[in-house]
């Protein structure tokens, strides 16, 4: 039930078809064999509970069976054998289903009648109602349930209704809590607000719009409650507190078997197995319902995803111009291709990327989201997700190819040779450890410092990233820092190993504008004073202009242009660079309407033939749609992947 899912729903229509969700949900559920098996089993058990006492009327009151053949194992005459009084075990098992399930039903009805209305009220109304309900729930959670039920049973001996209703009251808060927390996000949704504004009554909104949306969690929790109630019911009947002899119940049958367990252990098995299977069916049903509703939501999230199957990937036909390698390049990517194994097959996300960074230089990778910038950066550190893989090409760091290195070798490089800064400073630090403790660990690891020395160096490190009052900051937990402070700490962490290369993935995106400038100042200072080499991934031309010597423009997995930043800013060659620069807010401080690039970045796996940018390009010709375009060097030493320059400048 993520915000994103709501947003997707909100786009289509104001009110997602609340009624329409439910049948779709059940269809999905019925597509899972496990769910079907559970439902069928439970239906059979319920059917037996209803009909067995009618079909076998004598069993419930049978005091004794064939006393000459007691405690016999299974035979043709008695399929499951006979009990201590010579009665047929199978008959008793079938008839005993009724009191057992009746007890569960009694508890369940109380749980549902109390849990759903109070949970909805707490979640929807909030405020004082929520707090009172929460208080009562806290109270009920702290009561040892079975003992209280026993207390009730000592006053109302043998009353299953009283006992199971008490149990229901004690279990209701668990459902109440689930309903409450499922209701909270629904209440905030747009269409609920719209319904409120349009004057629909509260009870109408809750019953028609909120309830259907929280039905998934209700089913999950109810099946768990039913499973628990079944265990308690059988337990209490095992203690002979609920069902009086001679009427059979599953728990009572285990008690009967327990009396003779030393001489004939068979008798505990049939009722025990049936109880276990029934609890298992309820539990598994809850699990599959939970999985299915999660799937329904994630399906909603990806509804816009084109379902085109990825064609088998041909070996990259492109032979880009070899990256100009100079001896002083610290990092060089050569023809790097990265692919991901997905449900739709192997999908290429980065294709033939080449660029290099000389020591002390700053290079920026720029492009829209989804162009493969971050994947490129992560592949350098060997940190691709488990389904990602470098398919082709080399990553040379200090002359060493990183693509073939085992994880252990790569781990030695991380932090020590290459530092990494992410875009979400607040979540990039461990929330339960003090800032100083975390930094000290990196210092000890990378520089082999003693505990004491590491503590001293931590303060020094925090001072170096200009955190006010480093001693105090070291004592703080991440949640006590502002976003800017947290990013400074993250930078300090990346510097702890004195790395030769710093990779910063959108280091300022999540920060306020003023803080962004401060962080950029800090990075520039590091670069100037310590000669740190920086690779920065960004979509912000301001960051590039501020910090970088050269830029690599990426679009849909490919480098479309690369070169020094001045000529790129003054005279962008690739239409995409041109469009990206044109939509840069820094260029139009006063503009009322920011120019945008029409269309969106195609997803990996559905890149167009020819130039990847051709569907959005104003200059596109048939040639652009026909065949892949090479990255070409133009006359003034610049490189671009575009047909417009291919012919003019190739000879230079």
């Amino acid at each position, binding site marked *: 039930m993520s915000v994103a899912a709501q947003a997707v729903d909100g786009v289509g229509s104001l009110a997602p078809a609340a009624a329409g969700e439910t049948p779709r949900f059940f269809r999905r559920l019925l597509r899972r064999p496990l769910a079907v098996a559970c439902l069928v089993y439970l239906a059979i058990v319920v059917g037996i509970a209803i009909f067995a006492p009618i079909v076998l009327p004598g069993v419930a009151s049978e005091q004794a069976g064939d006393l000459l053949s007691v405690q016999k194992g299974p035979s043709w005459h008695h399929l499951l054998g006979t009990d201590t009084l010579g009665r047929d075990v199978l008959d008793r098992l079938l008839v005993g289903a009724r009191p057992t399930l009746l007890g569960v039903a009694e508890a369940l009805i109380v749980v549902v009648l109390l849990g759903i209305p109070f949970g909805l009220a707490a979640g929807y109304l909030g405020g004082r109602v929520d707090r009172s309900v929460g208080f009562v729930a806290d109270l009920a959670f702290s009561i040892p*349930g079975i003992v209280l039920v026993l207390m009730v049973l000592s006053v109302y001996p043998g009353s299953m209704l009283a006992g199971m209703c008490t149990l229901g009251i004690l279990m209701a808060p668990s459902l109440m809590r689930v309903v409450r927390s499922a209701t909270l996000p629904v209440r905030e949704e747009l269409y609920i607000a719209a319904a409120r504004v349009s004057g629909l009554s509260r009870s109408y909104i809750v019953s028609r719009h909120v309830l259907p949306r929280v039905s998934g969690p209700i089913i999950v929790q109810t099946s768990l409650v039913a499973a628990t109630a079944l*265990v308690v019911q059988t337990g209490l009947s095992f203690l002979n*507190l609920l069902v009086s002899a001679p009427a059979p119940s599953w728990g009572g049958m285990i008690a009967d078997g327990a009396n003779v367990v*030393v001489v004939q252990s068979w008798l505990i098995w049939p009722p025990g197995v049936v109880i276990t299977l029934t609890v298992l069916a309820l539990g598994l049903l809850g699990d599959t319902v939970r999985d299915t509703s999660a799937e329904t939501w994630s399906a909603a999230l990806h509804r816009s995803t084109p379902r085109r199957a990825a064609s088998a990937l041909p070996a990259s036909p492109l032979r880009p111009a070899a990256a100009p390698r100079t001896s002083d390049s610290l990092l060089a990517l050569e023809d790097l291709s990265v692919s991901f194994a997905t449900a739709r097959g192997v999908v290429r996300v980065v294709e033939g990327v080449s660029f290099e960074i000389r020591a002390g230089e700053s290079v920026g990778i720029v492009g829209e989201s989804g162009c493969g910038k971050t994947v490129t950066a992560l592949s350098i550190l060997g940190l691709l997700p488990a389904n990602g893989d470098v398919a082709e090409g080399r990553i040379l760091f200090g002359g060493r190819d990183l693509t073939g290195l085992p994880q252990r070798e790569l781990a030695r490089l991380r932090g020590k040779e290459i530092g990494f800064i992410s875009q979400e400073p607040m979540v990039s630090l461990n*929330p339960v450890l003090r800032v100083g403790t975390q930094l000290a660990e990196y210092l000890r690891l990378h520089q082999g410092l003693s505990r004491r020395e590491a503590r001293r160096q931590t303060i020094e490190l925090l001072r170096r990233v200009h955190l006010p009052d480093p001693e105090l900051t070291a004592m703080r937990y991440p949640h006590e820092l502002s976003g800017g402070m947290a990013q400074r700490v993250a930078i300090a962490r990346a510097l702890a190993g004195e790395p030769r290369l710093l990779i910063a993935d959108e280091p300022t995106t999540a920060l306020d504008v003023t803080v962004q400038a401060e962080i950029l100042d800090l990075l520039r200072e590091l670069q100037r004073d310590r000669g740190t080499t920086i690779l920065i991934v960004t979509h912000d031309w301001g960051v590039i202009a501020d910090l970088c010597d050269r830029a690599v423009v990426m679009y849909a997995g490919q480098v479309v242009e690369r070169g020094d930043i001045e000529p790129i800013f003054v005279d962008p060659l690739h239409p995409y660079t041109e469009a990206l620069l044109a939509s840069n807010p820094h260029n139009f401080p006063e503009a009322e309407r920011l120019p945008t690039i029409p269309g969106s970045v195609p997803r990996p796996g559905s890149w167009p033939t020819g130039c990847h940018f051709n569907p959005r390009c104003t200059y596109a010709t048939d040639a652009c749609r026909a065949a892949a375009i090479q990255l070409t060097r133009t006359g003034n030493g610049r490189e671009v992947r575009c047909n417009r320059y291919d012919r003019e400048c190739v000879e230079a």
Partner: protein
Amino acid sequence: MVSDERLAASTLGRGTAYGRAATAPFRKLRAFLYRHPFVLVPLRRLLLAVPLLFVVSSLSFVLVSLTPGDAAREILGINATPEEYAQLRRSLGLNLPLYDQYWNWLRHAFEGNLGASFLSGEKVTQVIGSGLPVTLSLILLAVVVVAVLGVGLGVFSAVRGGVAGRLVDAASMLGFAIPAFWLGLILIVVFAVKLNWFPAIGYVPLTQSATEWIRSLTLPVLALAIGGVAGVARQTREAMLDALNSEYIRMARANGLPPRSLYFRHALKNASIPVVTQLGLLTIALLGGTVLVENVFALQGLGRLVVGATTQHDLPVVQGIAVVFTLIVVVVNLLVDLAYTLLNPRVRA
């Protein structure tokens, strides 16, 4: 930045409830409490214990008043003379109004007197004193087994993934589904009757023999703990996977931390927060489990005593044991709250 007080208020829940009418000294007290979560947290739990104990202890009085007949009739049977009946009613205090009866009980309870059994006349505190060691041994051992095995298996399956993870998932489902009392019987059949490794029933006090104590408790503790081990393993696995998939672990890895530190120092500490809560809930569930398991293994603990008292309508004993169980729950919750506060700096101001 969020002020400390608001942060504490939001994480601890009901901070704003008392906000509006707070007078100056009260506000000072509140500020003090929010700055000292290690005072605030137990205090809240103890304050919650008051209504809790009230509900549990008064319930039986209310229930009894709703039913025909009374304890005097239960004790004397139907053949007693009206004089005898009236006299016993007086001596049991049953002729007083309900709230007086409750008040008397409460007064005595504060003096450590929980009344006497209707049946044997034995003091309830004595009955409890005889059963408590058995029940506490059972619960403590079970909690240790659950914590060690559950967390261990959970971490192992999260770190190893794949088949191990699916096995833990399946085993935890099965552990949840098998009723403890049935499992106890199976254990008796296999390990006591067939293999004769452990005694089938009975309890040997620790003071008598440590090895026999362990031997007499092994099967009951196993029966009690296996469901919990499964539940905690699953919870630990999920919490560990959550932690391992989090951004701070990715970034810690990106900056060179070795797997050992990632798993056991960074991920486990975060994962332990929900696991501790689960362990607390589980301990409370174990209290209920002891009632059944003690009956299966014929251990004369509180659970067996309370069931016996229930079948004989011996209300003072049932009530006394209910109060003791509630107190145990209060203590468990207190410990869980403190552990939670210790582990989770976001709760602390």
